[in-house]
């Protein structure tokens, strides 16, 4: 149990620190790497919380799919200017002050009066998840799959737009040459 605590809190700390470093990094690519690290750490945390299926999903979906998308976009986009956190910028202060107030409030809310019994984590395997997913939640699964389809169509549409733009641009460039 000691080991569990150690590994769990360590992975949480890694996730928080990596996320927080997003505030300071200069290049988007660095940010993507930090974010990937944070997600891997979170995947470990999920596993330790007794959710191996979600841990795998975290790795496959987030790290494998989403972050790859990020990296692609970063590589394709020409703009490199970044705006890391600078405390001299006064326009940031109200937002940060509000955030700190919110965190204080959350601390007060969570550790103020609530009493929760500590539990020992158990494995909730993918079979239970699958039964629930395709039993009780089958309608939601249908809805989510429709959403995915819509996203797919949308992306295809926009991608065609992008393509046409490039095609139109190419002849002009040739003429210019």
């Amino acid at each position: 149990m000691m080991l569990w605590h150690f590994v769990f809190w360590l992975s949480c700390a890694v996730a928080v620190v990596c996320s927080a470093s997003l505030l300071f990094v200069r290049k988007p690519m660095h940010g993507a790497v930090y974010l990937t690290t944070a997600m891997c750490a979170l995947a470990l945390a999920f596993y330790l919380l007794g959710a191996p299926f979600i841990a795998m999903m975290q790795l496959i979906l987030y790290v494998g799919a989403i972050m790859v998308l990020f990296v692609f976009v970063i590589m394709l986009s020409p703009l490199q200017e970044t705006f890391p956190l600078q405390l001299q910028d006064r326009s940031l202060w109200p937002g940060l002050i509000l955030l700190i107030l919110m965190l204080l409030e959350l601390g007060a809310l969570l550790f103020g009066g609530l009493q929760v019994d500590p539990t020992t984590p158990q494995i909730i395997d993918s079979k239970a998840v699958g039964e629930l997913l395709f039993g009780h939640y089958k309608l939601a699964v249908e809805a989510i799959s429709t959403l995915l389809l819509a996203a797919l169509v949308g992306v295809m549409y926009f991608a065609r737009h992008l393509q046409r733009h490039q095609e139109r641009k190419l002849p002009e460039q040739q003429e210019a040459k």
Partner: protein
Amino acid sequence: MTDALVTLPMMHHLLWLIPCAPLLGALLIIALDGLPTRAYGVIANLAVLVSALCVALLWLSGSWDMPVQTAYEWMHIDNWLLDVGFRVDRFTLVMASVSAWVGLLIHLFSTQYMRHDFGERRYFAYLNLFVGGMLLFITADNLILLYAGWEIMGLCSYALVSHYYTKDENVYAGRKAFVTTRIGDTALAIGIFLCFMQFQSLNLESIFQAAPQAPTGMIAAICILFMLGAFAKSAQFPLHVWLPDAMAGPSTVSALIHAATMITAGVYLIARTHVLFDLVPDVRWWVALVGAFTALYASVSAIGQNDIKRILAYSTISQIGYMFAALGVGGYSLALFHLAVHACFKALMFMSSGVIIEIYHHDHDIRNMGGLHKQQKFLSFAYLAGSLALAALPLVTASFYSKDAIIAATYTADHGAFLAGLGLLGALLTGVYSMRMYFMVFTGKARSEIHDYKMTWAMKLPLGILALGSLCLGFIQLPDSWSFGPHLLLPWLEPVLTSVALPEGHAGEMLELLGAAAAVIGILIAWPLTKAEVRSGRGVGNIGFLNKALYIDDLAKVLVIRPFLALCAVLGSVIDGLLLNGVLVAGVRRLMLNAAEVVSRGQGALVSRYVLLMVLGLMLIIGYLTVQL
């Protein structure tokens, strides 16, 4: 009486026609476009003729004891009901007769007088509306309807006085008439509100029944307000200033205003509500005082006038003053009597004066007239009848019987000797100015060119009837102390208007003699006065104090109008300019603009600001949860 019972139900349903026929006539004249101008005169005449015939039918059918007709239900709020209702009693009947018939004669006269004049159609529309308003006012059985008639007359007086609106001073005169009478209208309106507050009803009959139980203070307040309204409408002392200027309209309009409609409305109002006034004799006494004083004041002013129509205007103020004096001492039927007589001779004189002015080529100044008797015999005799009636020549003129009775009646009131003295002095001066006017116009040599003017029957007939009326109307009611002769009017009116207290014994006879003597002396003074004035070219008309009517009008200008204008200027610059325009209008505009800018900044199409607001909302929600737990 049997046939009276037969016709009564019919008349009962025709009461609405009395005020509505002229109103419909006015509507027709306005609505029907493109007729020849003469046709409008015919419509107007017919409309008033219908009213007059209805009134005559009432007389013939003998139905003068309170036929009431409810035309329709006007308002019905909870259990409070307001009808459009008409009622006629003996008093109303006499008054309606005067208004309708004298109005009809004036209409008839107008058809020739106004021919080829300016704005004939408009003139006839307003003339009809005027008579309709007066008849509505007379026959109304509740205060709202009465007030409606009252206001219609106010509107028409404004429109008709400024009939020749192309000249500034005529419009000014109309405005003056309207604004001055508006003071009275406001007072009357407040009085009606008080009536409603006290009695929860506006029906005259129910008010009269409930009045004795009401607190005296309230009754007094209502009476004072009604009195103010009557004073303004009838041009009594401080509020008389509009009437001499109201001569700017056509002479027939003056005749209508003075004889048949507006001016007499005040008298009618007080006599109508005499049940209330009887409850507060102290208030009523003030009516008498103001009336008697006005009678004297106006006759003094009339002496100093050179404009023929202004003389007549002041004479009206003076004669109405006598009526108010009679009202103030409880002689309501005497006031009505004098009103009828006055309507005859004043309509006659005003219409004649219109012709006279035409003849002297629109010159109003009697010093430039003279010698008309030889040219216009009929006009001269008619005017003489009117002038003598105004002067109240004993025995032969109607005014002698009505006016002297009033003077005698005032003697019975508190401080009666004082009131009667004012009246007698006024009577003396009345003789002077009335005959001075006649002599200046008709006798001697012509002092300016006389134009030919041929009067048709439409002019001669009304003048003849009215001349006859001014001479003979008095014979229906000889003085009470005379054992012989008819005493028809006062006893007949007694059930409605209560009996009149007249001085007993020697005092009454003395007053009668004094009154007669005053009139005769006044007439006798007038002759040498006129001769001297014609010879020297200077006379009473040159005395500025008299000519300006004791400078009351100028005093009013200094005391009322100038401070008011100054107040208006201050209000205009401070309230209107600064407060309303500067602060309220521009301020609100600026506030809206700035607020809109703030809101649009907040929206601002800046995503980071949206996020910031989102965080703020989130913080508030979590804060709420924290506090709740």
